[in-house]
């Protein structure tokens, strides 16, 4: 029962956040021309179709490698910078060194 309540809370928050995004996007693009997906021919313009795994044989997962690289670079930078900050430590202002 508790778990169902927690799941409901998560879903409600997700719907609220999603609703905000949906409202913002539709409001900002309300003047643009919209056509139903079913009316649109798949081969012409619009969104490209990703057939890689279905008919194009095995392809190099470039997007996954790119995303892994982004995550690795950001994580490495953050971990090293925070370690460097920790090592440097806070600057003490309690006993300032008085120069002679």
């Amino acid at each position: 029962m508790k778990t169902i309540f927690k799941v409901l809370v998560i879903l409600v928050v997700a719907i609220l956040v999603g609703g905000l995004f949906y409202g913002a996007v539709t409001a900002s693009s309300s003047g643009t021309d919209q056509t139903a997906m079913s009316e649109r021919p798949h081969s012409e313009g619009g969104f490209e179709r990703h057939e890689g795994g279905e008919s194009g044989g095995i392809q190099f997962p470039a997007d996954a490698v790119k995303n892994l690289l982004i995550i690795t670079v950001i994580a490495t930078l953050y971990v090293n910078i925070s370690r460097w900050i920790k090592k440097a430590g806070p600057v003490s202002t309690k006993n300032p060194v008085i120069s002679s």
Partner: protein
Amino acid sequence: MSKQNLTKLFLDLGTFVALLIASAPHFTGDAIHEWLSLALGGAIIVHLLLNWNWIVQITARLFAKVAKGQRFNYILNWGLFASGIMIMLSGLMISKTVVPFFGISLPENMSWKQLHELSTNITMILMGLHVATHWSWITNMLKRMLVPRAAAPVISAPVLSMHRKDA
């Protein structure tokens, strides 16, 4: 290592790998990309349930005296949640497999496609920060799992530490 921590570790590793696979639609094709992404939504709900106590604790004392790192982590997680919602929403709006499977046809709007790509890039950056803030937990868990007897001692929490009470 507690059973819950082990569950968390395996769930997180699995979710991470699934995220990388789902983020390569040219590699997987539309069907796997969309259904796997939908399944990732479920994995994220389980991830949130497993970390529920932390979420509740930090939410309750967000404006009270909380370590800077914890507050940053909390805001970062909200950003990750919001960008994840944005990916899901924009993905559903341009869906070619999942939404038509349920017999629904949605109006085409190019801004959803752009938002899908933008939110994916934002999510990857935030995911990098999310992994980084939990890096010590991840390495500790892996060390304990791989070398149970020579487990690394848990360092007492300094100012920038992201150690969790349940870790």
